[in-house]
């Protein structure tokens, strides 16, 4: 196939555009990494772009020694692991039950599920109900309300419905009940769908800052994303004060040494590391997941 002049021009334009886009995507990461390795007092002088001017590891050592941040990191890990495992196991069992044609009331259960995809009580009633259920200021508020995902149930169910029936027949002959069949036969061959939905769930748990910000007041339960959100807010606030009030400026500049921009950046990157670590898997399974969600109906 010969490339005409118009085609070559068109292609170069496209390549240039894509390279520009990739740069815009990556630059904020790179710049943040650079700032996080630059001495905090030096960053304030400005001009840090592609390379650190005063290289230091101190920002990271401060973050890793900060008890509050490390507790937050641990809480994030705990809620992600517990939340994901509970949610995937319970939702998969639920979906397996829902995939059985002999399940009595199957139609009614399904209608009850689908209604929740259209209607919800909204933020305020949910907030007050969770509060009356005693979930205020509890670690479990980040886990229990999100155990069952109707959306994931439907994806699991579609997958289970497509399994060949013969598979389960043999288990039944061996005397397995539904639970036995599920854990011995169905789970081992459902690897891809379990992996995909687990990743969805884990990323959601890791990134969720909002739940903790409205339900949890005591600091030792706050996940790192919520802590980070508070740090970023207070930074913006202090920047405003510095601009509006010259008298506050000298006062603030002393406080500023607590969370310099460099320190904030290193905190942000520490909170992002887990995502970057699983990113290769994410890429592989998420693209599949999107297809499950949108094409398979």
């Amino acid at each position, binding site marked *: 196939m010969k490339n005409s002049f118009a085609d070559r021009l068109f292609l170069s334009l496209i390549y240039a555009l894509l390279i520009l886009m990739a740069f815009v995507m990556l630059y904020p990461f790179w710049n943040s990494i650079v700032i996080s390795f630059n001495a905090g007092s030096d960053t304030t002088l400005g001009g840090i772009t592609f390379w650190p001017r005063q290289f230091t590891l101190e920002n990271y050592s401060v973050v890793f020694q900060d008890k509050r941040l490390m507790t937050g990191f641990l809480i994030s890990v705990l809620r992600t692991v517990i939340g994901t495992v509970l949610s995937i196991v319970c939702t998969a069992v639920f979906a397996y039950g829902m995939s059985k044609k002999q399940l*009595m009331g199957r139609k009614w259960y399904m209608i009850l599920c689908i209604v929740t995809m259209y209607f919800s009580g909204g933020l305020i009633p949910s907030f*007050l109900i969770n509060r009356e259920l005693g979930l205020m200021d509890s670690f479990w508020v980040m886990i229990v309300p999100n155990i069952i995902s109707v959306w994931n149930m439907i994806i699991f169910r579609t997958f289970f419905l497509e399994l060949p029936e013969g598979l389960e027949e043999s288990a039944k002959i061996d005397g397995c009940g539904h639970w036995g069949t599920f854990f011995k036969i169905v789970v081992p061959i459902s690897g891809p769908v379990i992996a995909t939905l687990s990743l969805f769930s884990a990323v959601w748990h890791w990134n969720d800052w909002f739940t903790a910000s409205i339900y949890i007041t005591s600091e030792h339960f706050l996940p790192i994303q*919520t802590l980070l959100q508070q740090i970023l807010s207070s930074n913006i606030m202090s920047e405003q004060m510095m601009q509006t009030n010259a008298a506050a400026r000298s006062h603030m500049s002393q406080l500023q040494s607590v969370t310099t921009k460099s320190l904030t950046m290193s905190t942000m990157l520490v909170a992002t590391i887990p*995502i970057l670590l699983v990113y290769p898997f994410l890429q592989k399974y998420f693209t599949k997941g*999107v297809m499950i969600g949108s094409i398979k109906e």
Partner: protein
Amino acid sequence: MKKSISSAPLAGNRHSFWVRFAKQLDLQLMVIPAMILILMFSYLPMYGVLMAFQDYDIFKGFLHSPWVGLKHFRTFFEAPEFWTVMRNTFVISVLRLLIGFPAPILLALILNEVIHLRFKRIIQTVSYLPHFLSWVIVSGFVASMLATDNGSLNMLLQKLHLIGEPVNFLSIPGYFWAILIGTGVWKEIGFSAIVYLAAIAGINPEIYEAASMDGANRLKKMWYITLPGISGVITIFMILAVGDILSAGFEDILLLAKNPVLQDVSDVIDTYVYRVGIRNSLFSYAAAVGLFKSGISVILLTAANMMARKLGRSLW
């Protein structure tokens, strides 16, 4: 399960219902606990929405708070914030439809033209990445890029002599919509393009060959074959996006519009509910505003879904 055809008396039927139920108890136990959780965390709040017609009192609870009818709805419609909130919701949603919606389609179209597969894969890998970051991190990036203190954008503009003094972009209302929409595109463009790329992959390659024979160049093929080839998918996503027009954003707005100066341009229905409900504890009033939104949304979404269904696809 098929009902037994035998003409057993009614009592016998009822009896057999429980017998059958007991027989499949292990199966029921897979479903019932999950249904209880759904009732607790989805249906109880739906019932709790009734508080929009009450003067909810924390100490009296849902059952004993006094009923006040439509008072809170009236207050909202007459509140000075009503028009600001509605305007922002619509403007931001429409901007998202005009800019945020076509952006991933454009990306999919031009990615499809790339001949070097390795290059294509690298670009895709890079473009998905922001999707997996939390809004907290993304808002931190935005704040850092736009900061007056060592913000890269200000440094660039100063180098180009476009501005003298650094501009504090995140505290000037005029810039907010652009920042919000731009950040949204940055975060989601790559990931949203996946569906369109998949649709493009489904186009019959023979059509392209035929067009090449007729001497069509790449741009023409993109315009006359690829784009029409995915128009079905585009239409469906468009309908669903229109159905969701009252959700103009939540986390992104909360995190990007921290400066109270921005409230006039950043307050949308969802963030308003959060502010008056959670921050100011006006529970019943906020629930009424939320109910107003979900009432209209349900109608829009159902209509959108019915239209999408007619075109061959649905939400579930």
